[in-house]
């Protein structure tokens, strides 16, 4: 198996790593870089637990090869909090009981952040559409939608 030297930025820190061609980005993050907040729920791109931002876009990191992330800026859930201050989406998930077991939560929040980065006033239908690639088995989605709406309101007031 051939190996590749790649460089990428994760949550603002630059990493140079040598990886096998087949290594998935999610495994690079979780096992090589020990950023275990990004979870694996299916490995077929359906559940969205592994969602991270790749150059600002939400991607399912179980379906991205680490080598494809060469030169990219990656944001994981660990990168949402800035200077000890939670991101409004994190605050809103906590405030609105938008999580239960917490397993889908990092991917769900990342998708929520990506939505709000391009639209600070999404409708309920747009929110539901945006998170339709992120499965949650615990919450029934109502409080997740509420949390994203609440974060949107907060961001509009900033």
């Amino acid at each position, binding site marked *: 198996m051939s190996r590749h030297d790649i460089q990428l930025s994760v949550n603002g820190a630059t990493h140079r790593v040598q990886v096998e061609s087949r290594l998935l980005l999610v495994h690079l993050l979780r096992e090589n870089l020990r950023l275990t907040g990004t979870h694996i729920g299916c490995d077929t791109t359906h559940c969205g637990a592994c969602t991270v931002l790749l150059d600002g876009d939400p991607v399912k990191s179980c379906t991205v090869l680490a080598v494809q992330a060469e030169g990219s800026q990656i944001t994981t859930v660990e990168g949402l909090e800035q200077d000890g201050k939670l991101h409004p989406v994190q605050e809103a998930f906590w405030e609105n009981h938008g999580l239960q077991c917490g397993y889908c939560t990092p991917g769900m929040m990342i998708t929520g952040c990506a939505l709000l980065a391009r639209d600070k006033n999404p409708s309920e239908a747009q929110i*539901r*559409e945006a998170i339709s*690639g992120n499965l949650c088995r615990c919450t029934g989605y109502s409080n997740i939608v509420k949390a994203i709406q609440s974060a949107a309101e907060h961001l509009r007031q900033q």
Partner: protein
Amino acid sequence: MSEPRTSPEVCGMGHSMKRKEDPRFIRGKGNYVDDIQLPGMLHMDIVRSPFAHAKIKSIDASKALKIPGVLAVITGETLAKYNLHWMPTLMSDTQMVLPTEKVMYQAQEVAAVIATDRYVAADGVEAVEVDYEPLPVVVDPFKALAPDAPVLRTDKKDKKDNRIFHWQAGDRAATDKAFAESDVVVKQDMYIPRIHVASIETCGCVADFDRVSGKLTVYMTTQAPHAVRTVFALVAGHVGLSEEKIRIISPDIGGGFGGKVPVYPGYVIAVAASVVIGKPVKWVEDRMENLQADSFARDYHIHAELAAKKDGTMTALRIKTLADHGYADAAANPSKFPAGLFSICTGSYALKHAFAEVDGVYTNKPPGGIAYRCSFRVTEAVHCIERITDVLAQELKMDPAELRLKNFIPPEKFPWKSALGWEYDSGNYPAALHKAMEIVGYEALRKEQAEKRARGELMGICISSFTEIVGAGPSKQFDILGLKMFDSCELRIHPTGKALARFGTKSQGQGHETTYAQIIAEELGIPAAQVQVEEGDTDTAPYGLGTYASRSTPTAGAAGSLAARKVREKAKQIAAHLLECSPDDLVWEPGKFSVKGAPSRSKTIQEIALAAYTNHPQGMEAGLEAVSYYDPPNLTFPFGSYIAVVDIDRGTGQVKVRRFVAVDDCGNIINPMIVDGQIHGGLAMGLAPALLEEISYDDEGNITGGSFMDYLLPTAVETPSWETAKTVTPSPHHPFGAKGVGESATVGAPPAIANAVVDALAHLGVRHVEIPITPEKVWRLLKEKGLAE
């Protein structure tokens, strides 16, 4: 429940306290099994059978063992040397850990590869060569009982057929007589399909055997760590695993819903591998393994009959069911009854006579089952009674609400002894249904429906008024391998008045760290923020039977409350000593004891806690702590009325749930926000089998629906915005009047949706639609009726 008794600072019962566990989850700092990485840890991956029934002629691991990094390939023969190739199930049956002779279902474990890296382990799995000789497959449970059906469990010497059990409850003769004397009888066959909990975290473990100390630590996705420890000790005692040397740690769990109650072969193989190799071994299944091999739920073929008088008074219920258990009865069923709590099937109605029977059979499918977010077999029972009630309403041309109101067990008749032997603790069914009808605007919706029907549009409104049965359970009805179904709390108050509370249960998202702290806060007045709750580590937590069947609040919650009351009793003695009065002269209000008639003379719980370590009365032991093991006197019977409003697209057959009103009654509420969250989640897991989910098999036993491509979980798009409300009828026997709530909605929602769909099509002569009600199923029905657009 009335207003909270405690201040927001104390945050006892009734406060919507923000969850104490959330700060770690929202930062990605949870600690799930796959996050655990130990020095020298190896990875395990599993070779699985492509056949549903086949003889294993040979397993050749030589190519796999040549791959750099592959250390071992474990087969049934390897385990047979230690007599670990079979294991007992909780239902006194046996199942294979790894086969030595034949495989019994597609995706069954055949061998395990141990390697230095998860990718290399997967390479090893690809390289293991297994030679199979296919055998005749039994897929249809009805055919499994045919005289000429191949006998599947050839390992059982005296087994001559595929029947596992026959179970029955009720008075058959009296029920038959009531049917003969009734004015109306309706009959309906219904199939409750095989489904899968599909928690977003799959199952897995890290087994870590220390050769020097002889201690085995297993980090494991389990809902019942203590029971697992005992099972491991009983099953593997002969190879030297002794219970004091086994530590099961259930870290953060990414959803359970019953799927993490069983001990799957993967766990056992990983433990065996770690013991043999002497290094930590991690096994985490992928999604397809999870869906295809882990325990299923449901798979009940029901024939139901309901008898009534002309005026709609229900007189008797008769049910015959065939249960497909797969190749082994490995049900995660803690009750003493092989059909679990199916005998709750008389539901919310004052039925005098009932008879129910269930036959369990073997087929070439994965063993099981599990509950899928309910007490075992309650969802099947509730679907049955709520569906057949609507069939009766249709037959009598009565409004389904009117029929239900006519037959509800009257509120004044509680506790109610059901025809099948349960004592319902408390209920007020008309109140919940009236409230749901009011919120949804039932009359107006009926008018809208009539108008739409006249225009050829399809809209349905219908009801499910369910009674749940949760909180396993009283030891007369429940045990696991003889272990009584109590649960426990060990509570310590520190000198500075802060508390540590440990429980025998294990949260998988229910929020125990918050709600249990609120229970202690309610009882002692110590702020919930200062109560540290721990569970899931068998070395530190008191023995308990775990979290499933909505049992945590009814059992461990009760134990928390009673442990706190024991602490309060000792605190009273200390307060009397400090205030120099008789304990009888003290009155308690949350957080302090004061002298009757002299409220200024008081001691707070914090002052008392300090005194317990610094200034306790002579003759009294130091410290302030208590333990409680709570064996509930009865189950709790939460209930509710749900109303679904659906629209059906005549072009696609798509059912859209436009509104869903859920009125629940779970007695007194600890944290309203968390209760609502539990209801929301349960509703989505009720909508799922009603409209989307099914695991099915073709004639060769090949699984269809074994990945998220085919097995469709509801997304935010299919899920409506839930409308919830409560009535409060406390449980009379629970220490703080609460009932379990985590599963009510999963149980109550499917028939509400199915009934609404049938209601939308009733004028076409449709009386029943099998779940999941997929667009294809509805479209075919519409086409048959000439209504498809």
